[in-house]
C-alpha cells in the first residue's frame, strides 16, 4: 500500500514545532551557562513573589468580606477595609493570645513528664516487646552504637536542616512583616490594580484573559476560604473529642490535626501518628486503637461530608492527581509546594479547561462572509 505523502501544511507545522523546541533548548543551555546570574535574579524575584503572593492570597479571603460590607452600605472602601482588617487582626491576635499558653504549657509538661518515660521505653521496655525478639534488638542496638550511625546522620542532617529552615523562615518572616502594608494598599485599590493589569494585555485577548483570571481567582479563593474553615473546624472538633476521651496533651494534638489538615491525604496520617504512638508507649486510657479510631472517624466525616459540600465541584479532582501533585510540587517548592499542591493542580485544570473551551468555541464559530447558498 502506498503511503500518503505529508502535506505542506503539516510539514510546516512540524518544522515550526521543531524550531520552537530547538530555541527552547538553546535558551535553556544559555541559562545553564549563566546559572550564577540567574540564581541572583531568581533570588530577587523570590523576595518579591513571597510577600506579593501572600498578599494576593490574603486578599482572596478578605476581599469578599469587604464587598459584602459595601453591599450592605458600609463604605467608603477605607471604612469597610478598616473593619475587615481590624477584625482579622483581632481574630489572629486572640487565637495566639488564648491558644499559645495552652500549647506552650502542654509542650513543657510533655518534655518534663513524658519524654523521659519515652526514652526509658525506647532503651528498656522496647527490647522485651521487640517484634523480632530480644537478640535482634541487641544486635541492632550494638550495630547502631558501633557504627555511630545516628550521630553521623544527625551531624550531616542538622546543619543542612537548620540552614534550609533559616532560608525558608527569614523570607517568610520578612514577608509577614510587610504583609499588612501591602495588603492595605492592595485591597484599597483592588479594582484599579485589576484594571491596570488588564490594560497591559493586548485588546484582542483582554476578554479571554479577564475571564481566565476570574475563574482562577474563584478556584483559588474557594479553596483557601474552604480550607481555612475546615482547618478551624476539624482542629476544634479533634481537640474536643481528644479531651472527651481523656487524652493528655489534647490541645497540642488537636492543633496538629487542624494544621496538618491542609495537606490532603498525608496530613491525616501525620496528625494521627503522634497521639497514637504516644498512647501506645505511655499506656493507660485511652488506648492507641481508640485514638486511631477517633482520627479515622474524624477524617471520614471531614472528607466525605464537609469537604465535598464546602469545596463544591471547584476542586473535585481524582485522589491520584492530588497525590501526584503533592509529590511533584513538594519536591519542587518544599513545604509550600505540599501545602499549595491542590490549588496549583486545580488552577492547571482550570487553565486547561479554559483553553479547551476556547478551542471548541473557535471550531464551532461559523465561517462568515462566504456564500452559503447552493
Amino acid at each position, binding site marked *: 500500500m502506498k503511503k500518503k505523502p505529508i502535506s505542506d501544511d503539516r510539514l510546516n507545522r512540524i518544522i515550526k514545532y521543531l524550531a520552537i523546541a530547538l530555541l527552547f533548548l538553546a535558551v535553556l543551555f544559555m541559562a545553564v551557562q549563566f546559572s550564577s546570574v540567574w540564581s541572583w535574579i531568581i533570588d530577587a524575584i523570590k523576595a518579591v513573589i513571597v510577600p506579593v503572593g501572600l498578599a494576593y492570597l490574603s486578599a482572596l479571603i478578605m476581599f469578599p468580606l469587604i464587598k459584602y460590607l459595601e453591599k450592605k452600605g458600609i463604605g467608603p472602601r477605607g471604612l469597610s477595609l478598616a473593619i475587615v482588617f481590624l477584625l482579622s487582626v483581632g481574630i489572629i491576635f486572640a487565637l495566639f493570645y488564648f491558644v499559645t499558653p495552652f500549647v506552650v504549657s502542654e509542650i513543657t509538661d510533655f518534655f518534663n513528664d513524658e519524654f523521659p518515660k519515652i526514652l526509658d521505653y525506647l532503651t528498656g521496655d522496647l527490647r522485651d516487646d521487640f517484634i523480632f525478639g530480644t537478640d535482634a534488638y541487641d544486635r541492632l542496638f550494638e550495630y547502631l552504637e558501633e557504627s555511630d550511625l545516628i550521630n553521623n546522620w544527625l551531624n550531616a542532617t542538622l546543619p543542612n536542616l537548620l540552614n534550609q529552615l533559616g532560608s525558608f523562615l527569614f523570607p517568610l518572616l520578612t514577608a509577614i512583616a510587610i504583609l499588612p502594608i501591602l495588603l492595605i494598599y492592595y485591597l484599597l485599590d483592588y479594582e484599579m490594580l485589576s484594571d491596570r493589569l488588564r490594560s497591559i494585555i493586548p485588546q484582542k485577548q483582554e476578554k479571554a484573559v479577564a475571564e481566565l483570571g476570574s475563574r482562577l481567582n474563584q478556584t483559588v479563593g474557594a479553596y483557601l476560604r474552604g480550607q481555612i474553615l475546615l482547618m478551624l473546624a476539624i482542629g476544634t472538633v479533634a481537640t474536643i473529642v481528644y*479531651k472527651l476521651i481523656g487524652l493528655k496533651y489534647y490541645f497540642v494534638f488537636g492543633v496538629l490535626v487542624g494544621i496538618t489538615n491542609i495537606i490532603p491525604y498525608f496530613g491525616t496520617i501525620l496528625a494521627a501518628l503522634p497521639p497514637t504512638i504516644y498512647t501506645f508507649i505511655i499506656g493507660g486510657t485511652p488506648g492507641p486503637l481508640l485514638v486511631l479510631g477517633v482520627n479515622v472517624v474524624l477524617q471520614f466525616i471531614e472528607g466525605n461530608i464537609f469537604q465535598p459540600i*464546602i469545596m463544591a465541584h471547584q476542586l473535585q479532582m481524582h485522589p491520584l492527581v492530588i497525590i501526584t501533585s503533592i509529590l511533584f510540587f513538594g519536591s519542587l517548592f518544599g513545604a509550600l509546594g505540599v501545602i499549595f499542591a491542590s490549588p496549583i493542580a486545580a488552577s492547571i485544570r482550570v487553565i486547561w479547561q479554559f483553553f479547551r473551551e476556547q478551542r471548541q468555541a473557535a471550531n464551532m464559530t461559523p465561517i462568515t462572509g462566504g456564500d452559503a447558498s447552493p
Partner: protein
Amino acid sequence: MMPANKGKIFSQYEIITIMFYFTMVLLHPIILVITYLFDIASVVDVLKFSFWLMIGILSLTLVGGVLLLTQKDRLKRRVKPAYRNEYITLLFLSAFGLLGFAVLYDYLGGNRQYIANVLTAILALMVYVLIVLGRKYFKFDYMRQK
C-alpha cells in the same frame, strides 16, 4: 403519593426561622463546647453557668422570635432557588452542637464510658433531621451529591 410541598420553594422567612430556632436549641451545647475547650470548669461552677446560660438563651429566643415576626413581610418577599450556604452553616452548628451534647453529658456526671454511645444516638437523630430539612426546605439533597 407525592408530598404536597415537594416542589415548593420556601422564602427566606421560613429558612431564617428554621436556622434561628435550630441555633437557639444548639447554642447552649455550642457555648459549653467552647468553655470545655478552655477548661472554664476550673474557674466557675459549670452547673450555675449552665443555668444562667439557659436563661440568657431563652430570653434571646424570645427577643429573636419577636424580631423575626416583625420582619416577616419583608423576608417573605425574598426567595432563593436553593439555600446552600445556609445549609452549610447548619451543618457546622450541628457538628459543634453534637459535641456540646457529649460535653453536657460529661458535665452532668454521666459515665465517660458511654460517651460514644450518646454521641452515636444523637448523631443518628441529627443526620436524619438534617437530611429531611435539606431535602424539604433548603433544596439541598446531600444524599444525591456526587
